[in-house]
């Protein structure tokens, strides 16, 4: 919070002063109504565009639609189908493998950049900070299109560097690296800014004390700075986990130029999209969306629960 110094801060934000509380109790009922009045606009949008679609998706997922039979109640059949459908399962397996690679890579790049930026102050360091962050302002579609051009054997630089032996990063064997590169490029700068802001929030007196104790710069970075920003790291992990499990834009955009290496079921979201908009299987697509949402929710909740002592998010 230290970087946000434009607003005055109360001395003890956590504890309400006693007189304010008793006054508040006297006005309890009125306060309750006013609180709800402020919350109401958001609550309406929340109900309409989060709760309703989720419930509706669940409702849809309980039916099947056949050409001959029409719509009929199918119970959990769509879910049994999903969890035995090789296309869905291979998509889930792909995003899990992808998360295990791309999340550590992104966070290591972001952390290394932030630690270096935190330790040097120069005009070039400030300039670098902005340049590393710039991809965040670029839509994922445009990012994917640009990297698609750079990967392209027709006019990308790889062909000009390596000649005919140039690797095509969207071939079946290299796809994983091609995607890792695009996603890291897109998001590492945003994570770097969050980590950097957290580092800047640490009181420098702590480093001074460590230095007097004889700690080297590397020890200060790894044993002092990293633990002190653990809640920022957890926030980033959660964001990137949610984002990677629902991987959609890059594979969707790069499909036409991948010569068929990107299949219509490469990730669960791409699969659900194709089911819905190519094959008009809305009931089954809803089941896939709902199942994916539940998987992500449970995964993230478990992660936050396990790290709750370090993070500030679930307290």
């Amino acid at each position: 919070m230290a970087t946000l110094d434009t607003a005055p801060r109360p001395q003890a934000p956590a504890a309400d002063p006693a007189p304010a509380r008793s006054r508040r109790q006297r006005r309890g009922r009125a306060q309750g109504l006013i609180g709800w009045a402020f919350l109401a606009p958001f609550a309406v949008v929340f109900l309409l565009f989060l709760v309703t679609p989720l419930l509706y998706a669940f409702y849809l997922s309980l039916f099947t639609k056949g050409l001959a039979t029409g719509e009929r109640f199918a119970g959990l059949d769509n879910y049994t189908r999903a969890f035995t459908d090789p296309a869905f399962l291979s998509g889930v397996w792909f995003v899990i493998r992808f998360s295990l690679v791309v999340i550590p890579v992104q966070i290591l790049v972001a952390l290394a950049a932030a630690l270096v930026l935190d330790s040097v102050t120069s005009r070039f360091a400030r300039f670098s900070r902005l340049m590393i962050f710039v991809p965040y302002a670029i839509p994922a579609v445009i990012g994917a299109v640009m990297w698609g051009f750079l990967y392209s054997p027709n006019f990308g630089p790889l062909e000009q560097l390596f000649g005919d032996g140039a690797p095509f990063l969207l071939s079946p064997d290299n796809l994983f690296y091609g995607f890792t590169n695009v996603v890291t490029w897109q998001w590492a700068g945003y994570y770097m800014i969050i980590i950097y802001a957290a580092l800047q929030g640490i009181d420098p007196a702590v480093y001074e004390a460590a230095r007097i104790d004889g700690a080297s710069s590397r020890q200060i970075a790894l044993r002092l700075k990293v633990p002190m920003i653990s809640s920022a790291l957890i926030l980033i992990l959660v964001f990137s986990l949610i984002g990677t499990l629902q991987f959609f834009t890059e594979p969707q955009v790069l499909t036409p130029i991948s010569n068929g290496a990107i299949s219509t079921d490469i990730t669960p979201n791409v699969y659900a999209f194709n089911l819905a908009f190519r094959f008009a299987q809305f009931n089954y697509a809803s089941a896939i969306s709902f199942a994916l949402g539940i998987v992500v929710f449970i995964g993230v909740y478990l992660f936050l629960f396990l790290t709750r002592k370090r993070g500030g998010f679930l307290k």
Partner: protein
Amino acid sequence: MSVLTRTADVDAPPVGAAGTPRRRGRRAWTSHVFLAFLVLYFVLPLWFLLVASTKSGGGLFNSPNGALWFGDGFHLLDNLRTLFTYNDGIYLRWLGNSLLYAIGGGVGATVLAVLAGYAFAKFDFPGRRVTFALLLGAVMVPMTALVIPTFVMLSEVGMTNTVWAVILPSMLSPFGVYLMRVYCADAVPDELLDAARMDGAGEFRVFRQVALPLMRPAVVTVLLLSVVGTWNNYFLPLAVLSDSQLFPVTVGINLWQGLAGANNGGGVSLYTLIIVGSLVSILPLIAAFLGLQRYWQGGLSIGSLK
């Protein structure tokens, strides 16, 4: 600190040794090399885009100086003219649509988030704990899981293929509410609100004249985050819109990308349009970020410092 004292004398540098001028100089030098390397990597696609947008349609494929340097002739202005006139200027329409969706969705999301965050931080209303737990749960619901259900729901009421189908769902920002609540709880003292009430100010006036000015950094941050989120959104407009006149620029460029692969430009090099169109579409947000540095650099960390 005990960990540090224990490990400190392994290689026993005397106090202050880490900071002798020569070592510090060498470290600064390696730091700068590392940063220069990162800058090159992150700027590379943008550099390619800039260089490629000055080339003619044919020059893209056989450029004498390679893909990463300028070719023969400077065709940027020609390319821009083609971009803005192709297909009756549909590109400008897409830019306008993106702007409309980003402002509509972004401002809407911010207004709702400020009001709700203030309610959570400063009022003890019945059901506060339950609703806040719901909100935290919603932060973890992947938004793309909602896209197909939202599409089906909107098509039931005949609202697909309208601007509202993009703007209204974009107003939902549980994370924005969370940021507002965290920030408001710290930055707006209860005493100040109570004092204003004692002076006879109504609740809305207390909010607007006392609380809102104190929340400004968080407001700018949430506004920026939600405008960027809507401007960059792709899945939602792709699903709910089918009329290309309503497309935002992200979906439009991808439409061209699909057509270019099928060689369907009707005599115009679609690759040139995609490249110049991409360049023009990223300029507004980059300008906004450079101009508003003061605000977002601190603000983006609100959620992570508690």
